[in-house]
């Protein structure tokens, strides 16, 4: 039985329940459905909206370091806080938010294993009361680009046949679809994948109850099936970088790969660029 490389990045729902009033901890909910938090959330949890808060509203990019620091400080989150992220859809968006926080240098970031659904399934308390954490000064650092890949790096990776993990569904990977099954088309002109990429749909890293699979299972998935080797320099991508931030989290913290980058431009950039190579299986 292999252990997770960095088991401290995962906390249980029970741990969160015990630390609701811990002044050194801040709990952050980040969901795909941006109204979900307002329907009911973990007591004292802070909402972070990936779309309207973390992303710049003009340029396709994240808000800059200064804006990020102001946003986070105003929510009452300090540099020394232990942050626990959770959210809907197996912590998909929680991992995305965590990735952005890591890019801006937050030290102690963790995920509540099982996410929002597990908390609810266990009948734990929800509230619609907003937390009233006093604003603090937050100093963001970075951005740490060792965890973020841009298109040229993805292209270099592809040309050098270094490992790329495409975490989209098999239909998107093969080029049959340009969007997720059951999801509407979101504007990629070409279907397929970056040449050389291996397909490991992100959701395969999660067990039926929404918690992460065991280290053994994850190793079998990424090293057995997808042929990664421990310590590989990996770039993960999906459609806009959200699903792949989940895989980035798994490879970095649960399997302990030191060089994993998330290509957030992902297929909505690659599938629209003129002249870049594409592989199709259909």
């Amino acid at each position: 039985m292999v252990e997770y490389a960095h088991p401290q990045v995962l906390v249980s729902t029970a741990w969160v329940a015990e630390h609701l009033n811990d002044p050194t901890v801040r709990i952050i909910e980040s969901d795909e459905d941006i109204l979900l938090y307002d329907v009911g959330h973990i007591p004292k949890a802070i909402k972070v909206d990936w779309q309207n808060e973390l992303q710049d509203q003009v340029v396709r990019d994240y808000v800059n370091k200064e804006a990020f620091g102001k946003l986070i400080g105003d929510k009452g989150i300090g540099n020394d806080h232990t942050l626990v992220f959770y959210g809907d859809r197996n912590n998909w968006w929680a991992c995305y938010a965590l990735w952005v926080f890591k890019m801006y240098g937050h030290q102690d970031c963790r995920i509540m294993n099982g996410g929002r659904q597990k908390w609810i399934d266990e009948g734990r308390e929800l509230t619609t009361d907003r937390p009233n954490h006093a604003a603090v000064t937050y100093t963001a650092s970075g951005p740490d680009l060792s965890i973020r890949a841009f298109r040229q790096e993805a292209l270099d990776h592809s040309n050098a046949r270094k490992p790329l993990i495409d975490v989209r569904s098999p239909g998107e990977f093969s080029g049959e679809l340009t969007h997720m099954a059951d999801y509407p088309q979101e504007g990629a002109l070409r279907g397929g994948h970056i040449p050389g990429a291996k397909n490991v749909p992100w959701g395969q890293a999660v067990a039926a109850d929404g918690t992460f699979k065991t280290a053994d299972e994850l190793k079998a998935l990424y090293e057995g099936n997808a042929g990664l080797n421990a310590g590989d320099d990996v770039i993960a991508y999906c459609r806009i970088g959200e699903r792949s931030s989940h895989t980035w989290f798994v490879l970095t913290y649960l399997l302990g790969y030191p060089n994993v980058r998330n290509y957030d431009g992902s297929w909505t950039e690659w599938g629209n660029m003129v002249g870049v190579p594409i592989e199709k299986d259909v």
Partner: protein
Amino acid sequence: MSDVAWPETLQGIIEEFKEADSEERLEMLLEFAMGMPDLPAELLSARDTMEQVHECQSPVFLLAKIDDGKVYYYLDVPREAPTVRGFAGILYEGLNGAEPAAILATPNDLYQRMGLHKVLSPLRLRGLTALLGRMKRNAQELGGGGPG
């Protein structure tokens, strides 16, 4: 283009959204999500007889009936999908009891008129537009009209 005006109730709701700021818009959307009635008991057990709106990211079911020339919708949207539920709630309140021709006159770019394109992702907006499209198609079929 039809000369028929689209339902006044819906026009009123859209107007309110237009005048609100982003935060208020989300609050109003949430209110519509919370306020939408659950399916009547006889439909709850017969959801498979309803039409599924596949374009939405969550399981959304729709049924339309006509009574005395007016269209009545039944919508089922999970409570865990408040954004979709909110938009469905707006259409439910705004279109229920209207005549088919008025429903068909509803503009397709509702979310843009409401300013929702500033707060929701393109992915969601397409699902919402699809829901309106299906509700209009139902109205057309029930009203017995050919393509307008």
